[in-house]
């Protein structure tokens, strides 16, 4: 079965073709990061205006890459939420009209399910069950994943997402928007021991996270510096990254112990962070646990994870009856398979 996947929930337009026997055949991505950078954050209306210019050209490119035609497609999956409603509606409109015209089913995919299942696109792919850490600019959640649609929330952030903390701290350090990757780069030349930043909720009994206090601590540290030279900024970046990696790693270990599972899966944009990967790899190998990541190019939002999640749902004939987007949508409300 060949599934076309369309992602347009935020600031990336992604289109992909996934074949249930041959795997991922093609995927195309357009990032709007440069467009939103001038505004210091994602402008929802501009995001929508860009999505509608991108969906069809990316679809054409995917079909060409895969050497397939529209008539080969068996189903069309699209991100139905959560996300920016205007942006979601663009992908949903094109997907539904195309499916209507081709007389094929649509699959309304939950964006986070896409991320959660994206490590299954890697080789080797993890088997169920596993603990998943979903860590991005919009989400920080730990989940026990027993199968497609069988997700148990173990803990989540009570305020900012980890990626948000990276971007906001980067902004305070004058690293532009989105500055998370720039912060990580600068941290490489910094001394993490020069400053001490808090590890919020590190010792809390639950598996929840909190990152807004860390961001405030960075703000106070920046204000306290007489001379915010390059080395000082690098040292603050290193201290920040060390704090956030320590909190995330410890919580992952706690989740593994609590569930008794031995496979850890990392998904979401922050999962591309090198120091986080090193920290988790160390912690897991010591304990004989396996750790899995999606392919690096599929860490950000993308169409491949939507096509893939759609294909999993298609196996169980869980197609959408009508056109709907859900800007707010609880992952736990999804049907199990």
């Amino acid at each position, binding site marked *: 079965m060949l599934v076309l996947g369309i992602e347009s929930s935020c600031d990336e337009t992604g289109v992909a073709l996934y074949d249930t026997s041959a795997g991922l055949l093609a995927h195309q991505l357009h990032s709007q990061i440069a467009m939103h950078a001038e505004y210091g954050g994602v402008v929802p209306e501009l995001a929508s205006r860009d999505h509608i210019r991108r969906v069809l050209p990316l679809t054409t490119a995917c079909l060409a890459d895969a050497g397939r035609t529209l008539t080969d497609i068996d189903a069309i999956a699209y991100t139905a939420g959560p996300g920016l409603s205007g942006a979601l*509606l663009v992908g949903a409109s094109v997907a539904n009209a*195309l499916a*209507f015209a081709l007389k094929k089913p649509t699959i309304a995919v939950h964006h986070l399910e896409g991320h959660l299942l994206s490590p299954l696109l890697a080789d080797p792919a993890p088997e169920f069950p596993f603990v998943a850490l979903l860590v991005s600019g919009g989400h920080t959640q730990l989940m026990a994943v027993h199968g497609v649609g069988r997700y148990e929330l173990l803990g989540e952030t009570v305020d900012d997402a980890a990626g948000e903390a990276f971007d906001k701290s980067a902004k305070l350090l004058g690293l532009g928007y989105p500055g998370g990757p720039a912060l990580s780069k600068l941290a490489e030349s910094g001394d993490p021991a020069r400053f001490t930043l808090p590890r919020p909720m590190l010792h809390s009994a639950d598996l929840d996270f909190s990152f807004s206090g860390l961001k405030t601590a960075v703000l106070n540290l920046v204000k306290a510096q007489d001379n915010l030279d390059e080395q000082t900024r690098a040292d603050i970046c290193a201290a920040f990254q060390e704090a956030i990696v320590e909190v995330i790693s410890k919580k992952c270990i706690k989740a593994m112990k609590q569930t008794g599972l031995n496979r850890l899966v990392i998904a979401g944009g922050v999962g591309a962070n090198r120091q986080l990967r090193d920290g988790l790899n160390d912690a897991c190998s010591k304990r004989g646990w396996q750790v899995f990541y999606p392919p690096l190019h599929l860490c950000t939002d993308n169409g491949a994870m939507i096509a893939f999640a759609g294909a999993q749902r298609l196996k169980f004939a869980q197609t959408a009856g009508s056109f709907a987007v859900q800007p707010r949508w609880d992952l736990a409300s999804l049907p199990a398979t």
Partner: protein
Amino acid sequence: MPYLALDTSTDHLSLALATDSGIRVRDWHVGQKHAELTLPCVAELLNECGVTLDQLAGIVFAAGPGSFTGLRIGCGIAQGLAFSRDLPVQGISTLEALAEASGHDRVYCCLDARMNQVYAAAYVRTESGWQEHCAPVVCNPEDVPLPDSDDWFGCGSGFRVFPDALAARLAPHLNGSDATLAATAGSMLALALPRFAAGKGLPAAEAQLVYLRDKVALKTSERG
């Protein structure tokens, strides 16, 4: 050859189908339910006229100005339908379609643009189609462009929402007005058919919307 037009830029859903026996127009008041209702209504209209998607020769959508999200739903659906059959598309100005719908020859079109503003343009009917006399703009109602002549017929929702401001500005230039007149997919189709005949359709991927309100956020450098 049948052509389909859809307008989802207002709180109505307007569809039109041109066949050899004429143009059939259907209109529903749908509020904000365009996303859910457009495709089922397209199916119903095609069915009523005994036309299949395979028979269509082109698709028309409202190019704006109008509700941003509404415009994109219509454009996205037009793109999806057209892309499936490699059909040409045409975006038609909602202001020009209003002029076409008015039945007058010198038309001052004014649509409510929310945020206390209007979209305005003036058109003159000529033998070769509508000619822009005042180019489309988004502005405050008291600043709408002044035509450099008289005898214009005013129409559109702007005259309902801002009757006093528009009267103060335009009264000497108008010979009448009708605030209830609205563009329909039928008036869009009427404008599009000769353009399709002249080979002016575009590939679905090149469909363009005209929002007029292009300043939707401040850049970091513009904030105080």
